[in-house]
């Protein structure tokens, strides 16, 4: 009984290490296959349009509402301490440091990530990737690498849009609707937000999330068995693994970036 239990744990560990090794190897294969994109930047630009454009509306609308809620909740909390003039600073710090990169990454995983996994999985199911291989075209170079770099580039841009729209949302609620002093709102934000520490670190977070989410989405699609069940399962796995990875990476990076 115990021997069987230990054997099962051993097999699970072995399989996990093997899967992890395969994923890391695949990641470096995508990076190594990206050289040709310098000669054909059109491939990345096309995907940047598809991936970024597809996620733009949901990112901007979510950013607006998150900013509005943050403005409202921040105002109620700060009023308790008579510090409602700091609303701009509170909102800007929350959005640039955390909410902008993290919520955008989660939205990106749900919108663009699932779409990438399903697209690659269905291409595999329809033998399109095999056909490409038989035409002497490397599918990793031609299909995966452009999508990977498009995702990596799109994430920080979407994160910045989310943050900017969020600040506008909190301005609308805090200043226009509630009547917080406009001068204090902007000047406290300007004085308290450091370009490198806040905006820079937020951008780095977005970049790392972009790498993680896009790679997970592509890997899941490429590894999916060519059946409807597995393509659908891969799409679900993309959201689950990406979300957990975003939270874990966020905690690690926050600990590194903002520890005193």
């Amino acid at each position, binding site marked *: 009984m115990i021997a069987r239990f230990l054997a099962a744990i051993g097999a699970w560990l072995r399989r996990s290490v093997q899967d992890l090794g395969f994923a890391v190897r695949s990641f470096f294969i995508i990076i190594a296959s990206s050289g040709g994109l310098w000669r054909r930047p059109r491939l990345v630009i096309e995907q940047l349009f598809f991936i970024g454009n597809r996620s733009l509306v949901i990112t901007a609308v979510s950013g607006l509402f998150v900013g509005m809620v943050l403005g409202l909740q921040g105002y109620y909390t700060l009023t308790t301490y008579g510090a409602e003039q700091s609303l701009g600073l509170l909102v800007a710090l929350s959005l640039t440091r955390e909410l902008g990169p993290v919520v955008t990454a989660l939205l990106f995983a749900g919108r663009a990530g699932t779409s990438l996994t399903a697209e690659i999985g269905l291409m595999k199911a*329809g*033998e*399109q990737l*095999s*056909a490409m291989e038989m*035409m*002497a*075209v490397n599918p990793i170079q031609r299909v995966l690498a452009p999508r990977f770099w498009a995702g990596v580039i799109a994430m920080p841009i979407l994160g910045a849009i989310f943050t900017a729209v969020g600040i506008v949302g909190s301005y609308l609620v805090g200043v226009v609707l509630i009547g917080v002093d406009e001068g204090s709102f902007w000047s406290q934000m300007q004085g308290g937000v450091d370009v490198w520490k806040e905006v820079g670190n937020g951008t780095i977070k977005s970049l790392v999330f972009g790498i993680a989410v896009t790679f997970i989405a592509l890997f899941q699609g490429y590894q999916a068995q060519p059946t409807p069940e597995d393509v659908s399962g891969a799409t679900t796995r993309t959201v689950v693994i990406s979300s957990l990875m975003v939270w874990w990476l966020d905690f690690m990076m926050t600990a590194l970036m903002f520890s005193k």
Partner: protein
Amino acid sequence: MGGSGSGKTTVLRLIGGQLRPSSGSVNVDGQIVHTLGTDELYQLRRKMGMLFQHGALFTDLTAFENVAFPLREHTDLNEELIRTLVLMKLHAVGLRNAAQLKPAEISGGMGRRVALARAIALDPELIMYDEPFAGLDPISMGVTANLIRNLNDALGSTSILVSHDVKECFAIADYVYFLSSGKIVAHGTPAEMAVSTHPYVKQFVNAEADGPVPFHYPGKSLADDLGLQTGGGR
């Protein structure tokens, strides 16, 4: 030729280097396929064209773009020349006027013909066809069979066709190999195979239910499965 699961498609995938043989070797144009590196394998594949069972067309591209794909990937030809070549290939399969349609807008048979135009886009020396007649109506089947034979003769290439459609294959093939359980069980010209007394070939060519290929999947008998005793007088 051979029944389902006899290893026909596996042979094509071994030739194309998409599978590695567990033993033995595959020699194509003087090269042992599974020993080639990625670059060498891709060089060899440039001499090959393959028609997949369901066409494997890129669904987001039009028929024109599908046929232009290998030309754009492997040549530096200008757009005007690519257009001329693509229209010629599509004309050869009778679909020049469907150039701007996407795979979802054309029938399965037409899709197979677009895929054929794509497979011959780079004038390959070896063309492989994986079940080109599967799921086609009799008219499309006849048209596709003639097309395969005519294109082969016009290009002067070698064609390997995998199928279980006896009539069409015997009409266009020069030589036929029969596979069963991954092994060659018989081979010869279509005329020789048509009169062969080999049990497998005979069963296959005449579509007989009885022969070396059993209808029922091997296992327990029906009497055992239903719990009936045999020979017990009940």
